[in-house]
């Protein structure tokens, strides 16, 4: 049986887990915990879930470790799945860790590959040392064997809209002792924007931007990518962007999945601030710019033409999915 907490990664996991379930000859199930979520449940069938356990209630309106762990673990004790998978979102990681402690089982976090070994046990691959090394991890016999999966890595499976999952409602009682704390508020950060240091995608501008107004095109690209805008020291010094946007050794050190550097030459202090980004893209009309040596993808052209074009392309791609 499998579990997903966040929408898209759940589909990705279901896609990969389907093969595993077939291999093992066990049913592939999903778990949904929330306030009014059962309507979403049948849709998981399109991606391979046979059954969806739905646990609903006011206690699950907002995520709390206590409530969700109790719900999940009660279910697990009841249904005894052999493998339990999560999306490695912030709450997914939190929930899976607590559950592994309660259930006394092994958990691998943030996996990039999931599968089975010959004996039908879970076997995964996950990054360590901030992605410098990858590790193949195996599990003890204790069930369920658990793993959380990194979003955006497994790829979306084909959806078969004709298939609907069976919805099984499960009644779980959760009391204040289970929750053990109180959610009193929610604070939106940065006008809905994530902090640079935790952003997954950053579109950054440097001296080549030539002016504060021109950052608008970066903001548009960032928006369509779901990222945030950063700046090199040159742009901040010129007064085009605030100090809080500065990426670099004396600004913020960031490590996003995608870093697009526009009009940034790539001085060493800047590189020291984003060098561990998973993918670096450089757009600069100077072919000698040092940043091209560090970039995975480089476009030697006028950023004022490339960036808007890129925004369009991304928009198209996202509309497709």
């Amino acid at each position, binding site marked *: 049986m499998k579990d997903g907490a966040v929408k898209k990664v759940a589909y990705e996991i279901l896609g990969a887990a389907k093969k595993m379930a077939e291999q093992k000859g066990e049913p592939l199930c999903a778990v949904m915990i929330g306030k009014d979520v059962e309507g979403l449940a049948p849709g998981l069938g399109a991606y391979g879930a046979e059954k969806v356990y739905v646990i609903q209630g006011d206690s699950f309106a907002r995520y709390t470790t206590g409530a969700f762990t109790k719900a999940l673990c009660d279910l697990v004790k009841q249904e005894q799945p052999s493998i339990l998978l999560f999306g490695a979102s912030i709450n997914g990681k939190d929930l899976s860790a607590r559950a592994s402690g309660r259930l006394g089982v092994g958990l691998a976090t943030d996996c990039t590959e999931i599968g089975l070994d010959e004996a039908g046990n879970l076997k995964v691959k996950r990054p360590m040392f901030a992605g410098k090394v990858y590790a193949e991890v195996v599990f003890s016999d204790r069930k369920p064997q658990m793993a959380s999966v990194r979003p955006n890595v497994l790829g979306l499976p084909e959806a078969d809209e004709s298939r609907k999952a069976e919805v099984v409602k499960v009644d779980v009682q959760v009391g204040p002792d289970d929750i053990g704390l109180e959610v009193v508020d929610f604070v939106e950060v940065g006008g809905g924007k994530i902090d640079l240091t935790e952003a997954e995608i950053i579109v950054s501008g440097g001296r080549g931007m030539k002016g504060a107004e021109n950052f608008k095109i970066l903001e548009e690209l960032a928006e369509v990518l779901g990222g945030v805008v950063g700046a090199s020291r*040159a742009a901040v*010094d*010129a007064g085009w962007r605030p100090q809080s946007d500065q990426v670099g*050794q*004396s600004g913020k050190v960031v490590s996003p999945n995608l870093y697009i550097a526009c009009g940034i*030459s*790539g001085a060493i*202090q800047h590189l020291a601030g984003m060098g561990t980004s998973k993918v670096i893209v450089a757009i600069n009309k100077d072919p000698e710019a*040092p940043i091209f*040596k560090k970039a995975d993808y480089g476009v030697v052209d006028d950023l004022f033409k490339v960036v808007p074009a890129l925004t369009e392309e991304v928009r198209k791609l996202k509309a497709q999915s």
Partner: protein
Amino acid sequence: MEATRELFWNIGRQGLLTYLIMGIAVLILAYSLYERVSLWRRGQAEDRWDRVGERIKGVVVNIIGHWRVLREAYPGFMHLLIFWGFLLLLIGAALDAFDHYSGLHFLKGTAYLTFSFFLDLAGLAVIVGLLLALWRRYVTRPRALDNRPEDLFVLLLLLALVVTGFLVEGARIAVQAPRAPWERWSFFGWALGTSLFPQGQGSLLWHKVFWWIHLSLSFLFVAVIVQSKLLHILTAILSTFFRNLKPQAIKPIEDMEEAETFGVNRVEELSWVDLMQLDACTRCGRCQENCPAYLTDKPLNPKMVIQGIREVFQEQSKGLLQRMRSWGVEEQQPSTEEGKALAGELIEEDAIWSCTTCGACIEQCPVFVEPFPKLIEIRRYLALMESRFPSEVQVAFRNMENNSNPWGIGMHTRADWAKELGIKTLAEDREVEYLFYVGCAGSFDDLNKKVAEAVAKLLEAAGVSFGILGVEEGCCGDSARRLGNEYLFQIIAQQNIETMKGYGVRKIVTMCPHCYNTLKNEYPQFGGDFEVYHYTELFSSLVAQGRLRPSKPLDIEVTYHDSCYLGRYNGLYEEPRGILRALLGVKLVEMPRSRSRSFCCGGGGGRFWMEEHLGTRINHARFEDVQRAGARMVVTSCPFCLTMMSDAIKEKGMEEKHEARDLAQVLREAVGV
């Protein structure tokens, strides 16, 4: 009547009171001096008694010869007049006394006339000098000067002293003139005497009056020396004698394991030399007018650093002086009142971190006061005791600790720049003549890796045997020490020394003046004695020897920017220029602020690792010098300077018109390797 002058003429036996009065003045002077010296001695120990011969020579050249004072024409000349004039007058008075009391009586006839003529000239010089000074201070009002009542007091006192001296002479001549026509030789006195005073006996009273006034003023002069600005007469000699003969090296903190406090935050934590220097400063303002931080509107003003500390020193000394003067036993334990904190309270932290350690303040000071080392001591306090520094500095410290370079780039990649070049490490082959100590910039910074490559290629072309330490090389530690983290510096330095000694390194060639200075002048503090050269030294001699032949004409107009650590710190001005002049098709224009007056690029003192939020940009200011010189290319031989100049060109959007290059790169192109 013979040409001579009678001692105490018209004054008679009362003249002997001179000795009593002046004796008292001298006693006051002596006691005041004793107090002052006692105050200095509250400071920490410091040994400045080495190389006495050199020290004495410095006093002769700078005090008598006014060498540094004369760097600025107007105030230099003005002060020369006052100083020499006064000195001559004093010598004259002494000669006069000697002439009388020794019984030799040689001051007569032509000798006397010559004597009197020169003394008049001297007195006139003093007056002219004083007038020039008054004009400068109160009419021209240069920014370098701040005016306090004591400035006016001293100028007027001196003026009054000399003028009354002339009036005495004038009155005497007025009386004696008819029988002493040779007094014309005392031309100024003669002029005054014949125009201002009634001729003949009528001036006897005037003479007496002015004589006593003159004596009183002399008494006042001597008595207030220590209490007034006149103290610089003595302290300038002392500060010149006890000057730092090795200003390039910052002094280490000894016994770091045992010490309880580090750095300086209270006046009494300074050394006695520092305290004495406070009293030598005459607020001439040359440090301020040459300070790159001050000139770009940072809150730092080296003159005010010294004066501010001096004020605190005065304040704190009051209590001690009171106790001393009450004839009681001198206090054994230090005062219980807490003095003002130097960091933050007296000097704002932004000012403390604004210093680039360019050394212009020390270079310019006519009396060898050292403003910036005190800032380093305060930085030490902030860094080591309170961990209080800009956040970028913390990043730089950690990076030096963990990856042996302030950028924090993986230390295992240190030798990557050399990978394709086939340069051997000492681990592979230690039988080389030179260790090429690359430094962090040459190893990790893209712009400067090209310079490292150029240096290596040139060394090869000249057939110099060299090797690098590769990944075993550690940061020289210059930035750590300049930022006050002496602990980190000593760890880094000792490690490097150990590695180098392990390979039996004797000669080192560097590409970075900071590394050069640290390795050459500071590593010996920890037992690291190597023969250290900067590539400009090596290459200039190789070019001269013909081992490097710059045959390719370049057709460029350049100006050379002197790096502070190469030039002011280590005197290497001509070597880089020698190289440039040996190149074909290179036209060298000099900026006015060049050589020892070179204007810092803004990167030194650890500032390269910090943000420049305040005032205007130092590197921009320097680049403006380049623009005014009209050269397309600015050539440097320092990685910091190269980066700062390149940045300035980019930031001002001048890439089409100007470029910055390192001398090694230019030479490489000319040699064609």
